[in-house]
């Protein structure tokens, strides 16, 4: 996502990667996206109209957590390598979590005891 940096004297390194770095932690984490995708279509939240977002927040890519200006731009995005890579990643095993880390450290599964109330 590096934009062009026109004032660069070294012609080889023309792209600024500052924007990519800035937005790195604004996107959703992998595990959040994975959980969202695991839900059935009905349970996912509908897209509210938000005038601050591109395209009033109506054209959204769940995999990449991005908003687009209109349908054609979004469909164009679906064809990109970045998106397809992301889809493939999300089809794979679940992302690493704290529970995985604890299991790897030699802890057992959490013991919550017997259920006190019938669900």
């Amino acid at each position, binding site marked *: 996502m590096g934009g062009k940096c026109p004032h660069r004297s070294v012609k080889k390194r023309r792209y600024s990667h500052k924007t990519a770095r800035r937005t790195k932690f604004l996107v959703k984490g992998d595990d959040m996206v994975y959980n969202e995708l695991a839900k059935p279509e009905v349970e996912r939240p509908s897209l509210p109209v938000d005038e601050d977002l591109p395209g009033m927040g109506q054209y959204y890519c769940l995999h990449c957590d991005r908003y687009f200006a209109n349908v054609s731009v979004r469909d164009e995005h679906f064809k990109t390598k970045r998106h397809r890579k992301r889809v493939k990643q999300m089809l794979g095993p679940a992302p690493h979590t704290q529970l995985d*880390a604890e299991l790897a450290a030699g802890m057992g599964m959490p013991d919550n005891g017997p259920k006190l109330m019938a669900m």
Partner: protein
Amino acid sequence: MRLEKCWFCSSPIYPGHGIQFVRNDATIFRFCRSKCHKNFKMKRNPRKVKWTKAYRRLHGKDMTKDSTFEFERWRHRPHKYDRNVTEDTLKAIKKIDKIRMDRESRHIARRHQGKKAKEFREAKKELDQSISLVKAPSVLKEDPSLTLPKLKVKVVPSQSEQDRMEE
């Protein structure tokens, strides 16, 4: 005092060590040192980084199934304090820790078994296949000092062959 586990490398985090990151959905990520924190910021997957416990477990480097893993776990239930139980637990921790370490070292020793023979086999195969890089095959034919000595096998003609020869 609670010893947490590092999100990235699964090592214990002692009080006053490491750093923690709380994401805007209230998920807590704890890191034992800046190395792990940096790796997290680089969005690396701990399952693909060789020095983490997650990698070692996944690739069969460490023991995965053992009864000693059943002791340390989250118990989300209230428990009444009992001094005797605590005392016994503290004694048991040392013993269990020793058992686990022994089993772990045995596992690794078993894993390393046959490594030497495997390396020898591979080296021999490479020597057989790419000796031509050292010396041309035509030269080798004249001076076979570089080739591996061929084992001589005595050929004993079977009964039917002997019969045929007599005929």
